[in-house]
């Protein structure tokens, strides 16, 4: 119950005997990920007095404790925790994301036993005040929890009625919600696929501008996480955002002046390229356990050295990336790009700028699909890897188009197409990963002139990856048959092919 500022337990003295216990004050630090994985997973993690407590989250209040762990120092990943049920619960909600403190608050709590005429405790009350910050700077709320004892629920109901008569309310935000709002840290769902509010008739330039603006905003929101090297997903998402922006600009042509559009694509491409090596190293290090598990235990120690080398190189790359991305030039580029695509900025006329985006984009989608079918027709068991790579790139472009313009594509058809495309992309991705990883392992072997033990380990790994790649090829052919087959082709034609209009002269 939320209480008016001056209401204390004394208001109940007319009917009950009160036994007020001493007050305790605790500073609670709340932790979550950038994506609010715990919050949206129905949980809250707080640290108090060196103990991490994972609790259920019930309407902005801290619910029952699920698990706790005494911890010296900061815990970032689920892997840093030792107690198995806590690790398992966190792994599911955090994945690759790291924990960071989101807000801290001071909770002053006093408990009170309420006794009846015979002196029996019939109810317990918890009087809580929540203050922002660890010094208790500003009181945000006073609340009271009425904890009935079993068999004495009627007495508790009477107490609630009495508190309501004194101005208490049963609704209102929970203390955690208030703390977050006070710190301007309200949880929001994070997605790389936001809605852009597009309609078929929206002018193409306006549509592309909205898409770029929204995705650029997501890219910018990831920069602080990269600069503090909190987890690998900030860089991953930042790179995806840059790729998507470049993609939409190149796929939906002639909506902005060509030279300017090309220049922006190049600048964003350069920004992404600066982080290529760091992302590669992240990928290798994230698959460390998987790689080592592929080898017999005897050969594993030899490969540990390679991962240690990658870790050391990553340290250098992180410093380099931070110095580039932390520089004012990087901030200026992102700011100017955002300004370029804002509605306030006027541009010279371009042929497609004012066309309705629906027909324009449907043409692009259909063209891209036909291109994929054409390449797929030439793919066989002996086709070079480059052809598979090319089809992977084309699929990625098509996927982006389907994603960007999902709001104007008929839902049922679009959903089925994306599902089938995702399956194909998954297999193409596995093929590409196996191919790239082989190359990079062989590169490492050549550059480092590894000893016999490491060479054996690397050789073993390369041959496993080669076999994996060959196996995936068969799966790709199956997925291509499905995606390029008659029924999917008919669906694409039905949905995206424009009727040819002949103008009467």
């Amino acid at each position, binding site marked *: 119950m939320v209480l008016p500022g001056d209401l204390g337990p004394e208001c109940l003295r007319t009917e009950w005997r009160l036994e007020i216990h001493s007050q305790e004050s605790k500073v609670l630090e709340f932790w979550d990920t950038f994506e609010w994985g715990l919050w949206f997973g129905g949980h809250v993690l707080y640290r108090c007095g060196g103990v991490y407590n994972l609790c259920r989250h019930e309407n902005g209040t801290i619910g029952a404790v699920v698990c706790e762990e005494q911890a010296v120092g900061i815990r970032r990943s689920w892997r840093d925790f030792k107690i198995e049920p806590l690790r398992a619960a966190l792994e599911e909600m955090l994945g690759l994301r790291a924990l960071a403190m989101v807000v801290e608050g001071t909770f002053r709590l006093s408990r009170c*036993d309420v006794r009846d005429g*015979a*002196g*029996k*405790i019939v109810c317990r009350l918890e009087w809580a005040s929540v203050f922002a910050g660890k010094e208790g700077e500003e009181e945000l709320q006073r609340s009271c929890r009425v904890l009935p*004892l*079993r*068999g*004495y629920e009627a007495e508790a109901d009477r107490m609630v009625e009495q508190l309501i008569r004194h101005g208490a309310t049963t609704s209102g935000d929970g203390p955690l919600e208030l703390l977050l709002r006070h710190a301007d840290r309200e949880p929001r769902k994070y997605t790389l696929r936001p809605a852009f509010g597009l309609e078929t008739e929206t002018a193409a330039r306006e549509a592309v501008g909205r898409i770029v603006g929204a995705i650029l905003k997501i890219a910018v929101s990831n920069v602080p996480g990269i600069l503090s090297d909190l987890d690998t997903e900030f860089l991953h998402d930042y790179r995806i955002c840059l790729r998507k922006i470049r993609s939409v600009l190149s796929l939906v042509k002639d909506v902005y002046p060509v030279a300017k559009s090309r220049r922006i694509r190049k600048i964003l491409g350069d920004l992404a390229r600066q982080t290529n090596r760091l992302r590669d190293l992240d990928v290798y290090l994230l698959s460390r356990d998987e790689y080592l598990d592929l080898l017999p235990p005897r050969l594993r120690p030899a490969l540990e050295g390679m991962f240690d080398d990658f870790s050391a190189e990553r340290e250098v790359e992180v410093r380099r990336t931070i110095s580039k991305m932390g520089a004012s030039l990087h901030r200026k580029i992102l700011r100017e790009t955002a300004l370029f695509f804002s509605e306030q900025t006027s541009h010279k006329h371009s042929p497609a700028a004012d066309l309705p985006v629906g027909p324009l984009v449907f043409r692009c989608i259909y063209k891209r699909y036909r291109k994929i079918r054409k390449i797929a027709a030439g793919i066989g068991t002996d086709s070079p890897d480059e052809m598979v790579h090319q089809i992977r790139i084309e699929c990625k472009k098509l996927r982006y188009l389907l994603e960007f313009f999902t709001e104007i594509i008929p839902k049922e058809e679009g959903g089925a197409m994306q599902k089938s495309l995702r399956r194909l992309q998954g297999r193409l991705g596995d093929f590409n990963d196996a191919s790239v990883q082989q190359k990079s392992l062989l590169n490492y072997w050549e550059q480092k002139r590894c000893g016999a033990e490491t060479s054996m380990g690397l050789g073993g790994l390369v041959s496993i990856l080669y076999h994996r790649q060959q196996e995936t090829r068969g799966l790709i052919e199956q997925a291509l048959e499905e995606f390029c087959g008659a029924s999917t082709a008919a669906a694409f034609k039905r949905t995206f092919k424009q009727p040819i209009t002949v103008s009467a002269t």
Partner: protein
Amino acid sequence: MKILSSYSIKGGVGKTALAVNLAFALCEAGHRTLLLDLDPQGAAAFYFRVGSAEKFRMRDAHSLAEGLRKNIRESDFPGLDIIPSNLCYRHFDILLDGMAKRRKQLRKVLEEFKPDYDVILMDCPPNITLLSENVFRASDAILVPVIPTVLSKRTLEQLTGFFRDEDLPGDMLRPFFSMVQKRNKMHREIMADLPASHPGFLKTAIPFSADVEKMGVHRMPLLAYSSICEAAMAYRALCNEILFPPGLQS
């Protein structure tokens, strides 16, 4: 879940004091405990300041369990709940008499509380009725307070005789000396002889203490207001001996 009962044919031997303090000691040791006051005098509930139970209709085992559940009262001590006594419990015998397997119904009823409690402790009235027989068959151990006097000794022998006649397992009987006055010669003599003829006799003895009698004034278990007096320590030792029999201690 363990089911214990505090029982004696004789009144005034310290049954309720045992039930109340043992329930507290069990809860103190971390066991979720339910104290079921079956004695219509309702002294156990009185010591916890709990009023008498609301009346309920007892038609069968299910309605009996439901009625008992509705009457569970949380004590002032977290982890310790009480079902207070009610005069309607005098109908227990009639109810049980009308049921099939009438001597084993109480166990079935109490099994329904298994998910919520580690121990159920019954404070029983001083008589032998169909309810008592149900208590005997429901309990894992029957704790019998014995004042080291000739009359108490005689009632213990009557009880063991009843167990023999009714073919009840005699090893469930766990007598112990209660209200012991060490300066009393007769107490000393009986304490020296009696345990030898009863294999389940508990080693811990509860001393006579004015502190125990003050429970009625404080209206709480002795262990709650005089935690380290000799009698309180004895109740804790008795609790330990029941939970961890000497043969099982490592």
